[in-house]
Every structure is written in structure tokens, then in C-alpha cells.
């Protein structure tokens, strides 16, 4: 356990699956140097196989006795999907548009497919996923080199690229499959919760860019913060698959008001719910019913009295209120220097000189 813990809450009722978070993360961190296939942030359709394919069945995590379980390491070719591009250049020569790699799977392959029969009871919702920065990380426990560490000051889980030797047990040990193997440098890499931004008081890129304002970021022990209120005060935000035993620190407000089913004549079945409660229980545990009830009650309260702190938080009138990052705290730790400044080196990529060919670079 770290001294303090940063956490993120995502309100699934507001996620529209636009992938702006995915793109924000990709352009910031994973569009280069062996990370091209990785999505540290992805938004997947549930129910669905997700990304990597069928990640929920690939093992890892802890059993009830607390023993870390063996897992399967997904393949870039069949489970993550090789990023493909098209031969745009050749179109002017009259050639047909063809991909350079035969696409067989990708990060959003089964988008909006969901389950059920249209129009009676089909349904789906989106789940954005980043590394859960767990309090008991499976990846960390699986590493035989002690190359993965959890920062004491905020609980961010990071890979020490110097110690990492590319054994990939971390990928097997993580039940969320949110740590990836970079085959170009033969090391594991993962979501770093944008720690260079966090330390400067900026929210992670995925949260900053979220158009639906679904993401709250803050310290779990900050009782004034919205994260604390959603997780501990109102208990409406729940971790994903907490049965894996890793104690995740990303929380989700579950889908609350789902549409009713239709009968054979296309008539609404009153009181029915398209999302089976068994599915919600599987993802968010038995507490999900209480959480849904709380949100519904507060919604009612707001309708009647015009007052509800919870509703005000979930509406998110001001985007900046969703992030309480406490720059003073980081400054007090003297964390002006990032732990691993190789990551921040990339920030200069926005400057033109690095995008133009230079004589120096071709040597």
C-alpha cells in the first residue's frame, strides 16, 4: 500500500464511446517506438470480447487464498491486432485501396455489437479502461526482477525500464491485461497515469480531453474531493472485477437507467431492464444494486427538492472541479523531477525541429 492513492472515477452513464480519451492517450504516449499496437486507454463495448480479445478469460489476479494465478500472454497478431494502414499513395496510380496488414482484430473490433435480440432486448454500454493502478498489483507480484513499483506518494504503478528484462510475467499476472510488451525494446510498458502531468497539477490526458465529462481524478483520502464523495460518501462508484483481488483504484458509476425491453408486439414491458443484473454483478460486484438505488434516489430527490450534492457532482458543471490534484502536495515532496524523465523527453515532439529531417539525425 502506498501512503496516498490517486484514483479515477468514470461515470458510465455519460460515456458515449467517442474514443477521444483513446486518441488523447495514443497521441501522447503510444503512437511510436514499438507501442503502436498498445492502447493504454481503450473504450470497449460491453458485452463483447474487448481488448485484448477475451481479456476477462486470460487469467492472472489472485484467488481467495491470496495466491497469484498464472495467466496467458495475448498475441499482438491475434489478440491485440496489428495496427494497419492503407496504400493511399497508390490510389492516384489507379490501384485499389488495400490494407498493408490483413486486419483480424483491433481495439474496437466489436464496437456496438452488444448482446440480445433487436429490437426486443438488445443492449450494450461502453467501458473505458486504463490501468487500475491497483493497491495489490498482479503485474508487480508476478515480476521476478522487482522491476515494477508502486509510488509511495500517490500509488501510481510504474515499470522501471532499467530493471525490466522483458520476461512478460507481468502481462500474465495482470487480470485486466493492461500492461503491454514492447517487442521493439523488449520491455513491458503501461499506463503511467500521466504522472508528469499529474505532478504539475494537470489531469491525465484521457480525463482532460473527455468530452462527456465522465472522469473524476483525485486522491482517495481527500474528503473534499469528488472522487472521495463518489467512492466513499455515496458509494456509487465501484471497482471493475474486484473479484480478481488486485484492489483496483479506477472506479465506475454503473449504468443506472437502462431502457425497458419490448415484447413480441413491440410494446414496452413495464419495469423490465435491458441490462441483466447478473452482468452488472459480474462486473461491479453485488454492491452494484445499492449503488444504482442511491443514484436513482438522489435523482428523485433532486427532481422534488432541487437539491442533491451527488447529482451536482455527476452533472459536472465545471470540468476543472472534477480534478483535485493538489500541486502543493507534489511540490512539497520536491518532485520537480519526474521519476523517469525518458517519458517526458517526448514532450518536445510538439516542437517542429523534431519533425523535420535534420542532418544530425541521419548520421
Amino acid at each position, binding site marked *: 500500500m502506498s501512503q496516498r492513492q490517486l484514483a479515477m472515477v468514470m461515470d458510465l452513464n455519460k460515456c458515449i464511446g467517442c474514443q477521444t480519451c483513446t486518441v488523447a492517450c495514443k497521441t501522447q504516449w503510444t503512437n511510436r517506438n514499438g507501442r503502436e499496437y498498445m492502447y493504454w486507454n481503450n473504450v470497449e463495448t460491453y458485452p463483447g470480447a474487448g481488448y485484448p480479445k477475451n481479456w476477462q478469460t486470460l487469467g492472472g489476479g489472485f484467488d481467495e487464498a491470496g495466491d497469484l494465478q498464472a495467466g*496467458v500472454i495475448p498475441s499482438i497478431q491475434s489478440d491485440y491486432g496489428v495496427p494497419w494502414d492503407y496504400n493511399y499513395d497508390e490510389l492516384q496510380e489507379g490501384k485499389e485501396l488495400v490494407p498493408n496488414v490483413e486486419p483480424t482484430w483491433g481495439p474496437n473490433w466489436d464496437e456496438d455489437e452488444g448482446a440480445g435480440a433487436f429490437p426486443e432486448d438488445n443492449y450494450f454500454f461502453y467501458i473505458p479502461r486504463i490501468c487500475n493502478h491497483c493497491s495489490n498489483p498482479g503485474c508487480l507480484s508476478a515480476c521476478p526482477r522487482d522491476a515494477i513499483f508502486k509510488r509511495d506518494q500517490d500509488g501510481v504503478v510504474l515499470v522501471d525500464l532499467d530493471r525490466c528484462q522483458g520476461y512478460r510475467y507481468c502481462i500474465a499476472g495482470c487480470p485486466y491485461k493492461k500492461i503491454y510488451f514492447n517487442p521493439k525494446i523488449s520491455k513491458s510498458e503501461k499506463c503511467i497515469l500521466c504522472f508528469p502531468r499529474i505532478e504539475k497539477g494537470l489531469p491525465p490526458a484521457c480525463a482532460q480531453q473527455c468530452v462527456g465529462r465522465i472522469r473524476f481524478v483525485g486522491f482517495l483520502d481527500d474528503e473534499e474531493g469528488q472522487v472521495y464523495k463518489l467512492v466513499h460518501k455515496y458509494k456509487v462508484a465501484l471497482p471493475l472485477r474486484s473479484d480478481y483481488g488486485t484492489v483496483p483504484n479506477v472506479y465506475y458509476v454503473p449504468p443506472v437507467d437502462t431502457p425497458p425491453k419490448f415484447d413480441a408486439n413491440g410494446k414496452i414491458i413495464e419495469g423490465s431492464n435491458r441490462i441483466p443484473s447478473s452482468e452488472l454483478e459480474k462486473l461491479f460486484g453485488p454492491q452494484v444494486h445499492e449503488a444504482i438505488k442511491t443514484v436513482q434516489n438522489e435523482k428523485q430527490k433532486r427532481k422534488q427538492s432541487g437539491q442533491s450534492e451527488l447529482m451536482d457532482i455527476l452533472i459536472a458543471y465545471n470540468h476543472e472541479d472534477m480534478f483535485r490534484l493538489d500541486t502543493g502536495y507534489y511540490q512539497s515532496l520536491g518532485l520537480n523531477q519526474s521519476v523517469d524523465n525518458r517519458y517526458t523527453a517526448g514532450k518536445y515532439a510538439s516542437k517542429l525541429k523534431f519533425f523535420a529531417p535534420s542532418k544530425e539525425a541521419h548520421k
Partner: protein
Amino acid sequence: MKKLLGLLLANLLFAFGLNASEPIKAMKVLGNVSNLTPDSKAWLSASFSEVMLYPQTALIFFDKIANKMNANNEAKKVEIKALYDGKNISFLLKWRDATRSVQKTDSSTLYGDGVAFQFAQNYDNVKTLPYIGMGSEGRAVVIHLAKASEGVYEPNGKKDVYHQVNPANQNLFGKDLQTYEQSVENKKESEYQRNFIAQGFRSMTQIRDENAKIHMYMQYKNGFWEATLSQPLKTEYLNLDNGAFPIAIAVWDGEKKNRDGLKSLSSWISVKLVGKSGGDKLINSLSAMPQGDIKNGEKIALENCTACHRYKNEHTAAAFMAPNLSNIGGYATKEYLKESIEHPNAVIVPGYNIKAHPNYPWYTLNQEGKRVSTMPPYDWMDEKSKNDLVAFLATLKEGEE
């Protein structure tokens, strides 16, 4: 008659327990051996010694598929020869591998074949050689590792931002883009070779010394890998310029997803610098068979060890409670076995991350923060019992594949 049969049986077990423990003879040559390759003619002047490598079974790791592939590994026979020129020493290792496996730069599931040579930093006292699995606290080892891998270039560590940008993200087109891609291609380093220093499993740290004159080559031919290691007899980290020194060897089979502890390894073997005096004590000790009553040793093991340790068909102990001893006779010296029985704190194998199997820590920390083994000392045992137990443990190893 019964007694005679018992004796015969004991002798048989003795024979089974035989190690290929004759010293490797490093022949002195006039030429320079500071940078030999498997094809160097110099190798004709030395002959091969056989060494047995045993599957590492003390710990199991978390890759479900790899665990299945390696569940029934057997011992591997490898061949080694050595040459020295007075200043440098070179080793040639040859082993059979049906497939050439290479770690590729576009795959998350391929692993390369590999080889490592391990040396003890201090080998004055043959009774306290470093633990075979990457040394132990206060007993450092130096490891030279080579893996078959596709060329890689790592721009991040070199603060080379320009070359870490994806070609598709460069605003370059046509010839400029080709030039860029070629410049990335040119920067690839094709050899994966690393030097490490370690004081125990988990503590392995890379030596980043660009002036280190250590050369390794791997070559695959007709179903065999040949690998060479050439290095000065004296380096900043190591002094091999003695009559004899210990070496240990490990190989990885990429086809079976071998990496890290998923490997086959030898025990400490002595290398004799032919023509240089000294080192007899080390050679004799590493060549000598453990003396003891194997049958009685087995009885002692069943009474004293199986509550915590598993081996072969003995599965009474809880999983992950203590190192599995199934191949301990293959890669541990008899001195190490005896020391561990008498003083479990002398060498502490850190084993799993404490959070991976929290119910069975292999060590605890005392008030000074020093590791204390959870195994109780068996120093109370009489000398004969200890020797019998060691003789039995030395028989715990897989047969040859």
C-alpha cells in the same frame, strides 16, 4: 541377503547420482583468444567436456502456457571447451536444439534461445560458493547472457526523440521518409548481449560498461547452437587468473517459451587452467561424490523435509511453501546442501514476490531489516544423518532427455 541387496541398491543410486563433475580443461594457446567466434580455428586445439544441465524447478512462474510446455523437462547434455592465452579466456558451448527460436520485434509471444555463463566473484572457500541461482547476499556472481533476437534500436534510453517518432507521424513523404526509415534501420543493434552482477535472485543488475572487453556470439548450425564467450581473465568484476575457478552454465529454449527462471542450468563446475598451478582443492571438492547412505537419507528427508518442501512424487507440503527440490541434486553442490541444512540463513533464496504467495513467505525480516529464513536450522542433526541426507538430496534430479 537383504543387506547385500540394500548395499547393491545403494550403489546403484550412487551411480545414478553421478555428476559430470570432471573439470573443464582450459588449454593454453599461443594466439589471442580475446575475441573468438564459434568458427575460430583455435578451437581445434581443445576437446569437449560434457556437462549436464537440469530444469530449474525450485520456483514456478506465472505463464500458464509456458508452465504446461515445461512441466516434463528432462536433463540436457551440453558440451563445452575452453582456451586461454595468459590474458584472456574463451569458452565454446555446444548444445542440441531442434529449432532456432528468435525473439522478434513484432511479437509478444515469441522468445529467443539463449545462453548464460555464470562466475563466482569470490571462490576462495569452496564451502561457501554463491548460490547457483544468481548468487546470494554477500556472495556475488557475474553473469554473461546472450539471446537470439532480431535487431532492435532503443531510442528512449539515448534521449533520441527524433527516432522514436513513428514514420506515419513524421511529416515526411517519398524519398525523405525512406531516408528516415533507413536511418532508423541503420541504428539497430543486432546482438542481444548483457552482463550482469547479482547477489541473489531478484537483485540482478546490468553492468553498463562500454569498455568491458566481453564478447559473445551465438550461431545455429545443423540442429546445434554454438556459443562463445571471450573475456579477459581479470576484469573489474572478476578474477579468473587462478589454477582453477568455478563456472555455471544455463541455456534457454525459446521454442518452449523459456526465459528468466524457465531454463536448464548446471551446478558449479570447475575450470582448470592447464599449465597453471593451484585450484586442486576446488577441483577435488566439485568432483567428489557425496558420501552417505542414500536410503537412510531418504528416510530422514521424509521425516524432516516433506512438511515444507515438495520433490518428485512427494507433494505433502503446500504449494509455494518452500523451494521445490525435484532437481536440487542437479544444480546444487553438496557443500551448499549441507550448509543449507545446518544454517538456512547463510543463503536465503528470496523466491516469489512476497505478495504473490502471501501465506508462505520464504523469509521474514528481523529488527535490523536482515532476512531470516523461515526454515529452521537442522544443526542439531548428527554428522552421519546430515551426510546421508545430502547424499539423498544429490540424487534428486531428472534423467537425460
